[in-house]
Each structure stands twice: as structure tokens, then as C-alpha cells.
């Protein structure tokens, strides 16, 4: 069954068309990349998919169900999780607590249970902690669990953000520039991690990225945006040779990055 279907999505900011007639289709367990110059509308697409913006025209259907008009946390309960371009971790809470809290919509208990500490509450908390512990171990964050995110190096913070998103057991994971600010070593790790996440958790990943090495080595399919419009879509080897893409984004000079080096 089609996981995500976007039809003729259009969104404006004032007079500026941020996204124009976007069509996208994602099936299960895919690794999709969204690339394009700055201002092309990529993050706007993610924001529309998360429910943060309400699309002006067009439809977004997740698992057959339209998400138009749903509030962001409701979209999340359906199974879409994401990370952010600028890291948005909760800095008064430890790494452990950050990952616990993203399971908020799956707690299954409310105010009275948390005050009265009913058996339902105890079971729920135990389940949340267990899943958090698993993720922390899987992502190699055990040593940093009691730390506050702002004390951690950038690369680790990104990993915590990914962990936070994974805690929701999403069906679709949106990664917004996960390699931003990373050195080459960290980028290699990231490529491995993303592939591993897809295999281990059997989910679909859609990522926005400027680091061509990550895009070419990770994504199975790439969509290129420019000024809100799709200018190309296809496999990595097709995209890197596409003249329109080279002109708009990859550059006319010897495209060293485009070769995936």
C-alpha cells in the first residue's frame, strides 16, 4: 500500500510561491532524497507533511488518509516523525528524558493516572523507559544519557534527535539536513546509520540534504526542487548527469561532489 501520496501540493508565503504543484509518492521501506538550492522549498514540504503548515492547494495522504487540517501532534500519531534543520532538543531535560517525551502521544494515560500512579501508569512508564533504553543502546548514547543536549557535541545532538524521532516507531522518518555541520568522519557514520535504521526498523526515510556524498550514497531515489518546482526525479546516477540539475544546483564546474566523492 502506498505510504505517502502528495498531489499537486502548492503553498504560498504572501506572494511567494514556496511549493508549486508538487507530486510525490512514497512506498514502504524507501530511501528518498529531496535536494535543491536554498529556498527551493524543501523544508516547507517537510513542514507541510508534518502538519505544521496547512497546504493552500493540493492533497497529502498518509496511508490513504488525508492529513489536511490535522494538528501536528495528530499527524505524528499517524506515524510521521522528523528531525529539524536547526536542532530543536529540549535543553532542560536530559537526553534520556528527551527520548522518553517524544513517546508522549503513545503514553495511554493522562493527568489523573500520573498523580495517582495507577498500575496502568506504572506499566506505561516501564514500557516507555524500556524503549528508550533500547534506542539509547542501539544508537550508542548510553554514556550520554544523563547529559543535557546543549552540553553535547553537534554530531551527538543530531543523533539524539534521530533517536527521539525513532522512539515514536514511525512509519515515515523525515530527516532535515542530518549531515549539516558534520566533519567527513561523522558523515561516513551518518551514511551507515541511515542505511542501518531503514533496515533495522523497516521504515521509509525521506531526507533533505546538501551533502552530495550522503545523498548519492544513501538515497535510492532523488527528487530535485528549484523555486518550489520539481525539475527532476530519478535514481542517483540519472540525477547527477541531468543537465538541468547540474545547471540549477550541482554546478557547471567539474562536479566533484556529484560523483559521490
Amino acid at each position, binding site marked *: 500500500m502506498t505510504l505517502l501520496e502528495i498531489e499537486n501540493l502548492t503553498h504560498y508565503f504572501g506572494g511567494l510561491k514556496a511549493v508549486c504543484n508538487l507530486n510525490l509518492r512514497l512506498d514502504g521501506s524507501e530511501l528518498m532524497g529531496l535536494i535543491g538550492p536554498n529556498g527551493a522549498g524543501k523544508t516547507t514540504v517537510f513542514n507541510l507533511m508534518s502538519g505544521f503548515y496547512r497546504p493552500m492547494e493540493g492533497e497529502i495522504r498518509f496511508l490513504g488518509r488525508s492529513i489536511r487540517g490535522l494538528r501536528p*501532534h495528530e499527524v*505524528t500519531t499517524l506515524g510521521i516523525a522528523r528531525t529539524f534543520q536547526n536542532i*530543536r532538543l*529540549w535543553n532542560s531535560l*536530559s537526553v534520556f528524558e528527551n527520548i522518553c517525551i517524544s513517546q508522549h*502521544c503513545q*503514553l495511554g494515560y493522562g493527568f489523573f493516572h500520573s498523580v495517582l500512579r495507577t498500575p496502568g*501508569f506504572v506499566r506505561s512508564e516501564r514500557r516507555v523507559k524500556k524503549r528508550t533504553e533500547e534506542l539509547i543502546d542501539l544508537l550508542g548514547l548510553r554514556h550520554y544519557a544523563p547529559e543535557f543536549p546543549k552540553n553535547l557535541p553537534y554530531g551527538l545532538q543530531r543523533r539524539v534527535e534521530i533517536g527521539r524521532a525513532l522512539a515514536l516507531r514511525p512509519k515515515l522518518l523525515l530527516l532535515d539536513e542530518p549531515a549539516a555541520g558534520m566533519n567527513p568522519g561523522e558523515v561516513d557514520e551518518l551514511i551507515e546509520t541511515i542505511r542501518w535504521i531503514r533496515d533495522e526498523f523497516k521504515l521509509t526515510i525521506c531526507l533533505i540534504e546538501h551533502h552530495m556524498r550522503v545523498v548519492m550514497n544513501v538515497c535510492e531515489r532523488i527528487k530535485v526542487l528549484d523555486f518550489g518546482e520539481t525539475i527532476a526525479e530519478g535514481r542517483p546516477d540519472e540525477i547527477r548527469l541531468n543537465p538541468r540539475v547540474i545547471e540549477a544546483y550541482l554546478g557547471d564546474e567539474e562536479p566533484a561532489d556529484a560523483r559521490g566523492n
Partner: protein
Amino acid sequence: MRNYGSILSYATLCALAVAAAKLGILNAYIQLILMYIGINIILSVSLNLVNGYMGEFSVGHAGFMAVGAYVTSILNVWLFTESPVFGPPLLSPFSAVFLFPATLLAGGVAAAVVGLLVAVPSFKTRGDYLAIITLAVNYIVKSSIENIQPIGGARGFMGMRNVIGSMQAVLNLPWNLIWVFICVGATVWIIQRLVNSTYGKGIIALRDDEIAAEIMGVNTRRMKIVAFMLSSGLAGVAGGLFAHVLGYINPGTFTIMKSTEVLVMVYLGGMGSLSGSVLSAIALTIALEVFRPLQLVKWVVLPLLLILLMIFRPEGIMGHRELTDVFPKLRSWLPPKEGRI
């Protein structure tokens, strides 16, 4: 179990204090101070939930106190006493002893509903604009009460002493003191439990980054409603207690000045620190008593102190920490905090 140790010790201390009061060891003045401290603790802790844990700027806490004070007092006087306003009591005066917690709760619930007036606008507005709305609600409550002539309007309302009197006729104990102790314990217990659960920590996530919280699945609107209603509800309970301690209330008590007192307590103790709010409530109540001879000048000295605090130690006494962070040995004695490894 660790949990019960602290509850037992608190209960024992309170029982001792009540016994001392009954035996006359603690005179009326000390009892009054203890009750003021208790009421201020409830006010401070409840406001800290919204201003500290949730990071909002609510400046109208006295409005909710007023709602609780009036609702509880009116119910009690109407049901249990002979009064010029309502006539003979509807129920036997002796039942006041058992039903007092019910009327207190009713005051709290009424205040919680009024808290919705602030909670709903908070969905769209934050920060400065929300501060104005809380201010407006405080004024609206006070103005409304002033305009309701049957309950005394601006002149005030009284009769609560008779309620306490009928309670003492059944069993001669310092009931005000007892109920203050019970409510303080309940307040701290509720808030502590809420904030240490994953559910309650959603409130802190809301403060740190509301957008991220909403997108990561926290139902921010529901959390705001819970926090505001709980906060105002507890303030209402504090108001009900306050009314019976004084025996007389009027709208002029519940102005921005009273709200400011509570604000000072919260920021003095440290936003987001439960033990901080408790400590600062105690400290400030005692300070206000000590400075009482200075009269008006105390309202110059106190703001000055707070300004100095803002400049040199804005995080207050405890900052974001709790007593258990400063004195780790206490940890074995107090209930455990979930999530800290």
C-alpha cells in the same frame, strides 16, 4: 517503600503542630503565621507550575484565589450558618466538619474553570500578550465581584468564623490549621507526581520548545489546559483557606498587588523548582511579618530586593534544581525522581 517515608514524616510533624496548638503551646499568632506560610506555599507552587515549569508569564494569580475564596465562603455560609444574606442554614451546621473539604474543592473547581479563560487564549498567544490576558482576567474577576451586591460587592463578605465555630462545636480542634496542612501536603504531592511523570514532563518540553513538542507528538493544547486549570484550581483552594483564616474577604485583597507577592515568591525560589517555591514562600512570609513595622517601606524594600536578585542571581534561590540536587543524601529519604539515572 521510599515514598511513604516522607509522607509519614510530614504527617507526624503536622500532627505535632496541631497538638501543640490545641494545648496552647503555639499561640494564636504563631498559628496564623503557619497558616499564612501554608497558603503562600500553595499559591507559590501552583503559580510555579505555569510560570516556572511551563515558562509562561501569568500575572493574575490573585484572580483565581478570589474565585475560590468567594465560592467556598458563599457555599459554607449559605449551607451551614445563619446569615443576614442567606438566612438559616440549609444543612445542619454540624455537617460542616465533614463537608468542608467538599466546599474547598468546589472553590478549586470554580477557579479551575475560570482558569480556562486564560488557557484557551494561550493556544495562540504567548509571552507578553498572555500576560495581559492574565492581568485582564484578574481585573475582570475583581470587578465582577465588586458588582455583585448580594454578596457584599466592594464592601466584602463575612460569616466564615461561624463556619469554623460550628466545626469546633463538633470537635474542638484548630480546624483551619489542620486543613491548611492537609492542602499543602496534597498540593506538593500532586505537583511533584505530575512533574515527575513522562506526561508531566511534556509541560517542560512545551516551555523549552513548543513547536518541537507539538511536532514530536505532545498535545500542547491539552497540556496547557491541564497546567492552567491545575494551577488556578489550587489557587482557588488557597483562596478558600485564606477566606476562613481571615473570616472576612473583600475584592480589594485580590488585586495585582497580591498577584505580585506570589510572583515574587516564584521568582525568588527559582522557576521550575518545587523545593525553591516552598522555601521562598516560607522565607517571604516570614520576611513580610518581620518587615511589618516598616509598613509601606516594605513595599519599596521588597521590589528592590527582587531587582537586585534579577541582576545578580536571576535564577532565584534554587534555579532549576531541587533540594535533592543540592543535598544528595536527602534522596534516600524523599520519593525518587523518575528518569534521572
